[in-house]
């Protein structure tokens, strides 16, 4: 399923291959630094072949480490070449990182179905890839908290200020000369944008927590998908590839329980849980 996703992206990115050949070579990222020698047209051809070939091979034989390695290498190089025009975007970073982790999935060998050891190894690597994805959201939340603390010491407006989201939206719209009615409305209605900003920080900061609390996995996944939808509607930032990862792994997680009661979920919520336990005992 995962490698079907990589294959889909390889096909979806096909219209951009010609543009890659026309990219200047002044800001090449390190995985494609060799393009200085081959020239951009040859580099684009090599990278596109590796990307599509690797993705196809891994989709056909995901149990082969060599195929998974080729897919990871192709994805890494394609992303590097794509972002060698002066700014690194981050839409496909999570796919690049998780494809590298998946190279270390255990070899299936002749044992079909895999034995207990093989199953444990497989789940451990899968869990790590999922944890890596959630960790990046927590790092983003941590950045906002650190940023707010630093700005508070400077006497500046922080991420916790009621106007913070309005300022982000207005700044982004002006910077990119974009028009967006939802963003414009939220910039003018602080009472609506402030809770969204605080909720976003909470959701991001504790995303990594959810991997250790399986009852929260599906809720956090839905929250993060809605967050991506909101950033598109307000800031015109479309982070589609991570949404597919979140949906595949978070909603259909083998670690999440089939059902989880509201009380159990509240008892797992970060910051809320201690208060909930205290009052539920009384």
């Amino acid at each position, binding site marked *: 399923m995962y490698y079907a996703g990589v294959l889909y992206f390889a096909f979806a990115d096909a219209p951009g291959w010609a543009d890659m050949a026309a*990219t*200047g*070579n*002044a*800001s090449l*990222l*390190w995985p494609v630094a060799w393009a200085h020698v081959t020239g951009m047209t040859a580099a684009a051809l090599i990278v596109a072949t590796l990307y599509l070939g690797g993705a196809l091979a891994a989709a056909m034989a995901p149990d082969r480490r060599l195929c998974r390695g080729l897919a990871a290498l192709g994805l*890494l190089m394609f*992303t*590097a070449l794509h*972002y060698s*025009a*002066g*700014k*690194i*975007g*981050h839409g496909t*970073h999570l796919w*690049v*990182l998780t494809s590298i982790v998946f190279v270390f999935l255990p070899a299936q060998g002749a044992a079909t179905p895999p*034995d*207990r*050891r093989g199953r*444990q190894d497989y789940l*451990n*690597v899968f*869990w*790590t890839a999922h944890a*890596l994805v959630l*960790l*990046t*959201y927590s*790092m*983003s939340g*941590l*950045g*906002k908290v*650190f*940023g*707010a603390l*630093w*700005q508070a010491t400077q006497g*500046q*407006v*922080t991420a916790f*200020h009621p*106007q*913070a989201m309005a*300022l*982000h939206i*207005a*700044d982004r*719209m*002006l*910077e*990119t*000369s*974009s028009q967006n009615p939802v963003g*414009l409305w939220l*910039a003018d209605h602080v009472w609506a944008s402030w809770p969204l900003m605080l909720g976003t920080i909470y959701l991001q900061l504790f995303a990594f927590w959810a991997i250790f609390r399986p009852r929260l996995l599906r809720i956090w996944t839905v929250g993060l998908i809605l967050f991506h939808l909101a950033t598109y509607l307000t800031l015109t930032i479309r982070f589609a590839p991570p949404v597919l990862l979140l949906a595949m792994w978070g909603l259909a997680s083998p670690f999440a329980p089939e059902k989880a009661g509201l009380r159990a979920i509240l008892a797992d919520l970060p910051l809320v849980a201690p208060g909930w336990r205290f009052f539920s005992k009384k």
Partner: protein
Amino acid sequence: MRPEKSICPPVHGNGYRPPTNAYRRRQGWLAAVLAAQLLGGLAVLAAPGQEVFPLYSWFLFALTPEPVRTRTELRLLELDGQAPRVPMPLESCRELVTPAQAPTVVRLARDLGRACAAQDESEVQRLRRTLEDNFVRRAARYELVELSYSPVERLHGGTEQVRKVREFKTGQP
């Protein structure tokens, strides 16, 4: 049916089977991957551009814009010998930049502004080469300006203060 080969030692009296050293070692490697992502992401904050692909801090929108904001912008003054009626922000010129490419041009304007402020001429020339190789591939004259404004007021038609930083011509130092 062949019994499964267990990686765990025999079951203890209470039913608990402690993990083997090999299992602990594998888990240690996987924990190291997560630690590398976290620590590597924080370490690259010190690198130029604050990232080393594919490691990134993920500090997106970490700083809230000030109510009065200062930023740099690239403005097109002339394209193929023809001047627009008013200087046009380069990221808005659809003949040169697609909407998807606009954030990259905005980022290049920011980096160029920083390089000009630091009087780092080699970095200025590198950034100009990146800009001109990828976006401004025709004969053009453009300028780098510094803008000061209130984002929320500006969104509703408020004014901005403009200060010219430097002017460039494609293909010329």
